[in-house]
């Protein structure tokens, strides 16, 4: 990596801000790494980039069949298929970002052992890939919203807020998990299970109204639940999450993001010794 002027190499760590600055300077590398993974992932497949849609479409179809038809879950404000999509698309993003965190570091191991670059680029590239998939899929959800002729109100203005919260939560968690997974391989094994549990604790395949009132206070503490409900509310007019739960989720997400950045950046220079 290029360095101008005087570089001091010692055991102390530079500040978080200066490291974020370095990562920003390396944005070209990020672009290339994202392009590489995007092209590398889909190019050999004969269906190519169509897989961006096909993979989640098949997944969503499974849930529609299992929960909509077999278990007969019904939702009032929006059709179940759309309800499911609007919850699953954000969840798939969170799942992909957090679930891919440890793997993204492991697969960058070789490059990291040969070239110096801001290590933050690795989880950022993992995040960007998930975000690209999300934006494509979410555009389809919005098309569906229009197709179903749902009445879109001023709540749509809150959509960016919930999406930012979703990205921050997923990124922060992915940083924490990536950092921990380096020194504790158990994390890599436990994460998929934890994500699966998290999915069913959040109103992805069922509406929040299914949750017994006694559990509602705990349920509202789940930031994923708040984010998913918030997104549904802004596009489809379902019940809004409570103000208190939104505030709590926002604080939680901020703390996770900062903790993740600090943890990752403090460990980044020694990661390669353990990978």
């Amino acid at each position, binding site marked *: *990596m*290029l*360095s*101008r*002027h*005087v*570089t*001091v*190499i*010692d*055991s102390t*760590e530079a500040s978080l801000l200066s490291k974020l600055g370095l990562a920003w300077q390396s944005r*070209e*590398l990020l672009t*290339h*790494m994202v*392009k*590489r993974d995007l*092209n*590398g992932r889909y*190019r*050999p497949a004969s269906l190519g980039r169509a897989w961006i849609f096909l993979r989640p479409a098949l997944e969503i179809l499974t849930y529609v069949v299992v929960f909509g038809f077999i278990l007969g879950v019904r939702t009032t404000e929006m059709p179940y298929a759309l309800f499911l999509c609007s919850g699953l698309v954000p969840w798939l993003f969170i799942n992909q970002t957090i679930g891919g965190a440890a793997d993204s570091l492991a697969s960058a191991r*070789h*490059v*990291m*052992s*040969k*070239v*110096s*670059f801001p290590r933050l680029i690795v989880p950022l590239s993992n995040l960007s890939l998930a975000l690209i998939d999300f934006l494509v899929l979410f555009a389809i959800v919005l098309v569906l919203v229009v197709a179903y002729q749902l009445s879109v109100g001023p709540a749509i203005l809150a959509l960016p807020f919930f999406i930012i919260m979703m990205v921050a939560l997923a990124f922060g968690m992915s940083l924490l998990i990536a*950092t*921990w997974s*380096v*020194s504790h391989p158990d994390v890599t094994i436990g994460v998929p299970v934890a994500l699966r549990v998290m999915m069913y604790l959040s109103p992805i395949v069922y509406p929040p109204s299914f949750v017994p009132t006694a559990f509602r206070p705990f349920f509202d503490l789940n930031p994923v639940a708040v984010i998913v409900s918030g997104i549904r509310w802004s596009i489809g007019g379902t019940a809004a999450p409570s103000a208190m739960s939104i505030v709590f989720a926002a604080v939680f997400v901020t703390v996770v993001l900062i*903790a993740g950045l*600090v*943890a*990752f950046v*403090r*460990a980044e*220079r*020694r*990661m*390669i*010794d*353990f*990978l």
Partner: protein
Amino acid sequence: MSEIAIEVEGLQKLYYLGGRRPASLGGVSTWLSGKTQAARDDESSRAVDEGRAFWALKDINLVLKRGEVLGIIGRNGAGKSTLLKILSRITAPTKGRAVIRGSMVSLLEVGTGFHDELTGRENIYLNATMLGMRRSEIERKFDEIVSFSGVERFLDTPVKHYSSGMRVRLGFSVAAHVEPDILIIDEVLAVGDLAFQEKCLSKVDSLTQDQARTVVFVSHSMASVASLCPRTVRLEGGVVVDDGPSGDVINRYYGQEHQAKGIASLADRRDRIGSGVVRFTSYHLEDLSGQVLNYVRSGEPASIVLNYECQPGFDGPAELLANIVFSNSKGVRLFGAPSDATRQTKGRLWPKGRLVCRLPEVPLLPGNYELDIACLRDRELADKIMGAATLTVIEGDPFGTGALPHPHFGDVVIRYGWDYEPSSEAAG
């Protein structure tokens, strides 16, 4: 800009074995626990005592002036690659510091981050960006990179269809077009087929010729260190044990490596046959001026000296047949040097004397060779010792090219040349 390009002070690096560190990675938990430097030092030394950790670098101090070209040599595990990784900022030191003045790029591998599914063109951009080149810079040098690599025709083919040679050529071309103030090069860069290796080395040479460029070059090949770097440091056990002009450092290194090999006493050998009227007492190597050598270089002159004692009454003029047979380390006989083939059998014995076999060019590739020695006096075997000595040959430069044939083709190197001519009919 200051005249000093790289300054390394008391650099230390501790590695935990098995890659596991008890606490954490110096992440949030150590930060929260607020451990002091002293507490961490205690922890490190305990880990080393208990065999859970080791110091890869103990205390490295080094100053490099701007424009200097430094070679780093040392055995495996001496700390070369750790030092390289710290200077390249791939890993952090445990203690100490290095100050680097100017832009720096390290080339530790060719084609880092190449992706099989991407085309040659895409991989050039990816790899060059990783090495710190800006898009505009890559675009400016793109044609040059492509033509140097010689893969023009396959630029839009995924690299998975490339031969390993093409991959390496493309990777090296990118690396060779990075032009920082300070360049750190690992030996792995000289790769590919012979013709391309030559191209690589001359490119590295021209990169190092630039007066303003500071270069650190790490290698196992003494010949390339000697030819590229005026100054060399030798690492041993994580410290700098030698520093100076490359020739001196390399000679001292070999001197130490092969101390016992240059001179061998033969007086006490029991595994010998012959009448014993002449007995070999010792063996050593000399250069042309009679200086004792510990080793010889491929393609350079050397004398093999066999000292002997002759029983009283057997000295004086005699018909002598002296012979040395050279075998490689696998025990395969390569060639002999019997004195009858050169019609040098009319000789003379002294009570104490020496039989000297002069080789105008040592025709052996670097390695260790076994010598069998024998002497016949008046057609009667006087003394013969199998495996009398080990001859150590190190890299030399018989062709003045810096290159030697690959040992795969055999252990012997002879003087030869090639001409490329039309057949006589075509010429006529």
